[in-house]
């Protein structure tokens, strides 16, 4: 009895979780799907072939979104690695203030900073450019990467580095052959999820890109607001693909001891 109740609750939860994705599959292959038809007139691959053709600009947007997310992630890891190490390993004066600054972008909505940010990047000549959008994406992505890396370093014992150093390794050698292999699993997960935080940004790209940087979510909205449900659905499915792949790769690690890594993920 208790077991079948659990199964039922589990089914309800699973159903609710996939429900909003289901119409996307239907619409992406539909042709002339008017109210009140339960099924489309015709099932076609037209929306998909348009979405994948050069004139729709979808693949180009996919490339731009990938480029921006990759560059943002690389910068966030390079900057966040030393910061995460300092926060994870050491207690120092002002640590609380630094943490406060890192939590700031998670709790202050993007709309609160985006106008001022646009002013700064405009003055720097970066508004409307891909480098400007990358810098803007660092505002949510860098704190995320830093906090995850701090959690990774909190489990790291620096005594191993000292041993390597006392055996004659340079600082770089100690990092390269002792520290890096130890933190690599956590570092990879941090990087993959940092990528997703940038991948799902909307407002920052809209504002800083000033209409000249067309990432996938912006293109998706322009098709959706034009009422092209079929093409929007195809773009939406393409857009969620990398995230699903990343979960498929990291799922085991996340359910295990790395659960804390997902905690800060809030794209």
């Amino acid at each position, binding site marked *: 009895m208790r077991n079948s109740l659990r199964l039922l609750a589990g089914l309800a939860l699973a159903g609710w979780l996939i429900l909003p994705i289901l119409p996307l599959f239907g619409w992406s292959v539909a042709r002339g799907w008017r109210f009140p038809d*339960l099924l489309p007139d015709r099932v076609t691959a037209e929306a998909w072939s348009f979405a994948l053709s050069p004139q729709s600009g979808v693949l180009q947007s996919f490339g731009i979104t990938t480029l921006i997310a990759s560059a943002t992630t690389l910068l966030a890891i390079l900057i966040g690695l030393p910061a995460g190490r300092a926060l994870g390993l050491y207690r120092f004066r002002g640590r609380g203030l630094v943490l406060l600054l890192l939590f700031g972008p998670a709790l202050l909505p993007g709309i609160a900073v985006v106008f001022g940010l646009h002013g700064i990047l405009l003055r720097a000549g970066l508004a409307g450019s891909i480098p400007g959008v990358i810098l803007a994406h660092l505002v949510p992505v860098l704190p995320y990467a830093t906090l995850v890396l701090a959690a990774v370093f909190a489990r790291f014992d620096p005594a191993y580095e000292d041993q390597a150093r006392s055996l004659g390794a340079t600082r770089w050698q100690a990092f390269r052959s002792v520290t890096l292999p130890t933190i690599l699993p956590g570092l990879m997960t941090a990087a993959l999820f940092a990528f997703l935080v940038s991948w799902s940004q909307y407002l920052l790209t809209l504002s800083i890109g000033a209409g000249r940087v067309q990432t996938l979510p912006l293109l998706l909205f322009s098709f959706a607001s034009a009422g092209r449900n079929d093409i929007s659905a195809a773009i939406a499915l393409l857009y969620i693909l990398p995230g699903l792949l990343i979960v498929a790769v990291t799922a085991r690690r996340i359910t295990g001891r790395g659960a804390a890594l997902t905690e800060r993920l809030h794209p």
Partner: protein
Amino acid sequence: MLAPALLVLGGLFLTGLGLTLLRSFRYMPALGLTEPDLAAYAAILTAPGFLKSLGLSLWIATASTLIAALLALAAALLLRQTFPGRALISFLVQANLTIPHIVGAIGILYLFSQSGSFARLAHAAGLISGPQDFPALTHDPWAIGIILLYVWKELPFITLILLANMQTLGEDHESVARTLGATRWQAFRHVLLPMLMPGLLAASTLVFAFAFGAYEVPLVLGAHAPKALPVLAWQASTDTDLAARPEAMAMAIVIAAVGLALLAVYARMLTKGPANAQ
């Protein structure tokens, strides 16, 4: 070691916030405005749209957070047990986390709009004769579609945090209570729930902040009027009338003030609740 990160966040986040603040006081030397004043704040406070939008955004955030937190608590308790299909649900919970909000919002629109999947099912069942008979669940004054989206999107987020917390707590405390004669409900209510509370509150604060300040979700699912506050602020910022710009900045500052209050609450919880994983 911290310098580069502080430089980036100080230079972009804090300076961006500061510049927004200056402009909200109508201090814009480039436009010849060098006398800061509170006119923009006075303007938005006397315009009826602003207070309605603020109220709507607070309603969206409160309702979404409460419903998502309650359901997440139930989901976490369920996923702690073993039952057939648990692995699949765990995967779905994690997969949902990676789906951008705008995709979920479009999915909710296709499901719940007046010509969406559920309206068609209602028509097939003979419950309605046309789209106009189906209750307005999207673009509606109560923001039901927006709340549905946040419940869908944030339930897995809170669930994962609760599951991570449960993992570090273990089941020992509850079994002790049970051997001391507590019922299952008592063990949950007086032992497990208090231990989960810091994590639940911290996660709920993040969800509240997001639901209050997100732009793209009410853009897709929101009513024409009143608009959610972030949409109203963005619209004012792109107004061709330059005088509306400081009003956009003032609205952004009001949103930031709500965010700062949440940050203060969050920081307090983090320092008080050691059970909270960082």
